């Protein structure tokens, strides 16, 4: 085999400065990161739905979606829950510290290719709102190019909801139908949203499938139970998009662990339609 490889280190990350830290919910944080290299800051582009590997030097790398809008240039945001070695280290970084980022990797939600000019229904569950939020902002920043926008968001309890300031903003924005819900028991006194699991609330809110695309993300169990509701409401499986987030190490189709059946989530995903998911074994 003759390889005319220019040998560059595909595992070397960009260096980024932590510009802002936002506490979203107990254990959940958002970091706003700016590229240190001037040229990268200017040229870096991604598509909503893509992901990256975020690293704390000495602790390791972790994979999250890019949570900020693709229309916002020069910086990235990621939201994470502290659960292991790397996320605990990420939790300890302070404003001004340096972290690493590799990406953007994977495919994306086809906003430009398909969704523009149609109605969009966004469904987020728990911290699974992060990838959906990237699409929401990308869409809201070019609001005129989309028709009706519906956002349905649910979390276990009111305090576990992420992006609280933005939820309030979306709720007030004319032209957005906004529904928030918490699991039964997660509603504090004076709660002004719905109470019930997301699939139930989606069924009750009954967004119209007419000329519409649905974009949803949440824990595997949430996706599993929301998909049938959308199908029942009449959304064709080709117009329901979700993003799968299996465990990854390399993010670029080498390390061999993120596959669902024959598909590498990092290469052929993370974005899949419900039609594509029907062809996949339940390995997510």
């Amino acid at each position, binding site marked *: *085999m003759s*390889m005319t*490889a220019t*040998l*560059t*280190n*595909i*595992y*070397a*990350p960009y*260096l980024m400065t932590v510009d802002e830290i936002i506490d979203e919910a107990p254990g959940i944080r958002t970091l706003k990161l700016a590229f240190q290299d001037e040229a990268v800051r200017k040229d870096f582009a991604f598509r909503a739905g893509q992901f990256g590997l975020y*690293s*704390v*030097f*000495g*602790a*390791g*790398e972790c994979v999250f979606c890019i949570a900020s809008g693709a229309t916002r240039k020069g910086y990235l945001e990621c939201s994470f*829950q502290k*659960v*292991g070695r790397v*996320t605990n280290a990420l939790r300890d970084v302070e404003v*001004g*510290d*340096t972290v*690493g980022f590799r990406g953007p990797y994977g495919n994306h939600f086809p906003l430009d290719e398909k969704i523009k000019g149609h109605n969009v229904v966004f469904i987020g569950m728990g911290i699974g709102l992060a990838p959906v939020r990237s699409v929401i902002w990308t869409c809201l920043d070019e609001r005129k190019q989309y028709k009706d926008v519906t956002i349905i968001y649910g979390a276990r309890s009111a305090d576990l909801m992420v992006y609280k300031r933005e939820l309030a903003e979306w709720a007030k924005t004319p032209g957005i139908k906004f529904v928030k819900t918490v699991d039964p028991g997660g509603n504090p006194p004076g709660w002004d949203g719905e109470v019930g699991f997301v699939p139930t609330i989606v069924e009750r809110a009954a967004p119209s499938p007419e000329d519409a695309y649905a974009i949803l993300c949440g*824990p*595997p169990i949430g996706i599993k139970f929301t998909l049938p509701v959308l199908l029942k409401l009449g959304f064709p499986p080709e117009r329901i998009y979700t993003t799968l*987030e*299996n*465990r990854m*190490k*390399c993010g*670029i*189709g*080498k*390390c*061999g*662990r*993120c*596959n*669902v*059946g*024959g598909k590498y989530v990092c*290469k052929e995903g993370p974005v899949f339609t419900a039609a594509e998911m029907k062809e996949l*074994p339940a*390995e*997510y």
Partner: protein
Amino acid sequence: MATIITAENLKQLAREMLKAGYRVIAPAKQADLVVFKAIKDAQEMLPESEYILPQASFKEFVFPRCECILRYRFGEGGKPVFESPNLDGEPPQAVIGCRPCDAASLPILDKIFGWDYVDPFYFKRREKTAVISVACSRAGEGCFCTSAGYAPDSTAGSDILLKKCAGGKYAAEVLSDKGRQLAEKFGSLFEKVEATPPVEVAGLNPAFDVEKIKPWLDKHFDDPLWLEIAARCMGCGTCAYGCPTCHCFDMVDEGDLAGGCRLKNWDTCSSALFTKHGSGHNPRSSQEQRYRQRVLHKFKYYLEKFGLRACVGCGRCTARCPVNLDLRGVLQTIAGKQA
């Protein structure tokens, strides 16, 4: 015209290559095991008659068990400064005396490390690796190369293939530019003869028809057979570490206050931690799911994606498994089923 090299000159070849600055990798003794070793002295190289397959394949010389892929020290204000890993400073290396099955693993590994993003750590070694393999004149107990689509004298991945003749000589088949350059550079050790003398190549009847594997796998993701087969799998990973084509890896950081490095380490799909999410959810939570992944990856997914199966039939997984989980037998069972 044919080319011949004597066993004595093969050793001399190792000697001269060492002198010329090559890293020479050959089967050698380590305690009472035969392993691939970067030898320091040609005397360490075992005669081909003393082994069939070394303990593991020579994969670790193109894809090390543990490798630093990013080194950094903390500079001013704790900001990491990268010390770029050496991407071209490897010496040329030659594997002498491996079997055709191990050689055949290279074109398979080239696919995964070369698609889309080119892994520089693999290719910096791969491009400088020459393979001089020796066809098998006898088969080992786990061998099933002829069932996996190869043969005791397969040429895939070899630059020069040697076949045993009478009188301690080997017929040398030069198969690539790299092989030709070696045969020229060390030309005095090779001898030209009129015609290839009779060679000894092991006979090994196929145990199953490999073409029948994928059609069954295509339709039986959920099948009681997986549980039946894998009930005794301990998930130890011996099969993966010995395998010439297993390539899955982990990435971890090791560091202290001064700096650190990011490491790429061999990993195995039989470990429960391999796919476990941070949330605790595990898409492959039971051992039979993990064993199924191993078989499907090798005989279905890899074939669909890259046009090759990720198995050369060396049989190490079968021979080394502590609970006798015999992949060859598993494949035989699958091939015997109606897809």
